[in-house]
C-alpha cells in the first residue's frame, strides 16, 4: 500500500467542514469551566471550612484519573442518573433524546476546571495582602474588593496558563468522537474507515489541529496583551 495523495486532497475539505464543531466544543467547555474554576479557586484561597476539602478531593480525583475514563463515566452514567431524577420530579423530558454534545461539554470541562482553579488560586496568592486591605480602606466590601481588585490581577498572573488550557482543551476535543459527537477526528475516522485509508485521513486532522491551535494561540496572545493593563506595578514600572 502507498500513501494516497488524491484521497487526502478530497478528504481535507470534507473534514474541515467539521471545524465549527471542534471550536464549539472548545469555546463552550472553556466558558463552562471558567466560572467553576474561579469559584473553586476562591474557595481554596479563602480556605472555606467544609467546602475546601471537598474541592481539593474533587481536584485530586480529576487529576488522578485518565480523561477517557471520565468521559466514559459521564457518558454512560449521567443519563441514568438524570433520567431517574427527572422521573422522580415527574417531568416527561426524555434524556436519551438529548444531543450527546451536552455530555461532551460537561466531560471536557472537568479537567480544565481543575487547571483553571489551580492557576487562579496561585494568581490570587501573588496579589499582595496590601491590595486587599487597600480596597477595604477605601470603603469597598469584601466581595467588591475581591471582584474589582484581587481577581483582575490574579487573572493576569494566570493568563499564560489559560492559553495552555485552551490548547489542552482543543486537543482533548479529539476524544469527543467516543461520545458519538462528530468533530474533525470523528469525521476522519468515518472517512478513513470507509475505504481503509486511516493514515491519510489522520494526516488531514493532524494538519487541521496544528492550524487551529496556532490560530487560537495567536488570538490568546493578543487578548493577553490587552488584559495586561491590570498587572500590578505596570504603571510605576513604566514611569521608572
Amino acid at each position, binding site marked *: 500500500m502507498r500513501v494516497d495523495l488524491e484521497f487526502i486532497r478530497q478528504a481535507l475539505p470534507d473534514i474541515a467542514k467539521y471545524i465549527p464543531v471542534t471550536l464549539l466544543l472548545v469555546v463552550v467547555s472553556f466558558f463552562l469551566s471558567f466560572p467553576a474554576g474561579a469559584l473553586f479557586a476562591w474557595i481554596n484561597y479563602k480556605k472555606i471550612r467544609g467546602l475546601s476539602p471537598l474541592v481539593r478531593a474533587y481536584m485530586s480525583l480529576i487529576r488522578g484519573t485518565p480523561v477517557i*475514563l471520565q468521559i466514559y463515566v459521564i457518558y454512560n452514567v449521567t443519563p441514568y442518573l438524570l433520567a431517574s431524577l427527572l422521573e422522580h420530579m415527574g417531568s416527561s423530558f426524555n434524556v436519551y433524546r438529548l444531543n450527546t454534545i451536552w455530555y461532551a461539554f460537561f466531560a471536557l470541562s472537568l479537567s480544565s476546571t481543575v487547571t483553571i482553579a489551580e492557576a487562579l488560586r496561585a494568581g490570587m496568592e501573588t496579589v499582595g495582602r496590601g491590595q486587599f486591605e487597600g480596597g477595604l480602606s477605601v470603603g469597598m466590601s469584601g466581595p467588591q474588593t475581591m471582584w474589582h481588585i484581587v481577581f483582575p490581577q490574579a487573572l493576569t498572573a494566570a493568563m499564560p496558563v489559560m492559553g495552555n488550557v485552551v490548547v489542552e482543551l482543543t486537543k482533548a476535543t479529539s476524544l469527543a468522537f467516543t461520545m458519538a459527537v462528530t468533530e474533525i477526528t470523528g469525521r476522519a475516522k468515518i472517512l478513513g474507515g470507509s475505504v481503509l485509508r486511516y*493514515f491519510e485521513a489522520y494526516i488531514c486532522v493532524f494538519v487541521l489541529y496544528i492550524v487551529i491551535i496556532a490560530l487560537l494561540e495567536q488570538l490568546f496572545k493578543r487578548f493577553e496583551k490587552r488584559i495586561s493593563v491590570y498587572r500590578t506595578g505596570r504603571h510605576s514600572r513604566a514611569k521608572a
Partner: protein
Amino acid sequence: MQKITLEKIIYFFTGSVPALGVTFAYVIVSMIFGTIIGTGLYRMKSSHSKVAGFLANLYVTVVRCTPSLVMLFLVFYGLPLLVGGEAGARMEEWPILTFVCVTFSIFIGASSSEIIRAAVEAVPAGQAEAGLSVGLSGMQTFRYVTLPQMLKNAMPNIGNTVILLIKEGALAYTIGLRDVLGQAYYLSGREMNAYAVSMYIALTLIYWPLTILLEHLFAAFERALTPWERKGKRAALRRTAEGGAKYAG
C-alpha cells in the same frame, strides 16, 4: 440502573492490576527514548546553527499541537505505510506496545527538551566553577555538583510527565493495547458491559491512588537529591557531622 456489587469491583480490580506491567513498560521505555530525543533537541536549540534551532522548535510546536489520539493513530497506521514494502508489511505484525512506545517517545522528546533546558539554566555556572576550583575533576563536578541540582529542579516536571503518560497511555486501548484500562474494558466486554459501573469504580481505585503515590514518590526523590536543603534539627545535624563525613568520603 446497573447494580454495583463489591464482588464485581474486586473482580475488575484484581483482573486489571496485573496489566500495570504493560503500563510501566511503555512509561519506562518512552521516558528513556524520549529523554534521548529531548537531549538531542536541547543540543539543537542551544547550538549556534539557526537551521538546527528552527527545526528543533518546529518539532516541539508540531508535537505540542497534536492530540495524543491522533499521533497514536498516525504512528500505528502510518509507520508500516511509510517504511513500505516487505519491511513495512512485517511491521504490521509487531506488538502494539511498540507503536505505543514510539508515539509517546515522540511526545516525551518534545516536553523533555524544555524540561532539560529549564534544569540546565537553573544551575548557575558558578556551581561548576566552584566544584572545579576545589579540585574535583570535570566528571566529578558533574556527578556531585551539577547533576543533583539539575535533577532536583527537573524532578517535579519529571513526576508530572510520568503521571501524564500513565493517564494518556490509557488512550492506547483504542488501537488495542491491553494496559490497565484496556484490560478492564476487555474483561467488561466479555460480560456484555453489564457491570460497566463497577469497572469504572475499579479503574478509579487503581489510577487515583497510583497518581497520589507517584506524586509523593517524586517529592521524596526531590528531597533525597538535595539533603543540604532539608529543614529541621535532624537534617541540620546530619549536614554538619555525620553528613559531612559521608559526603566527603
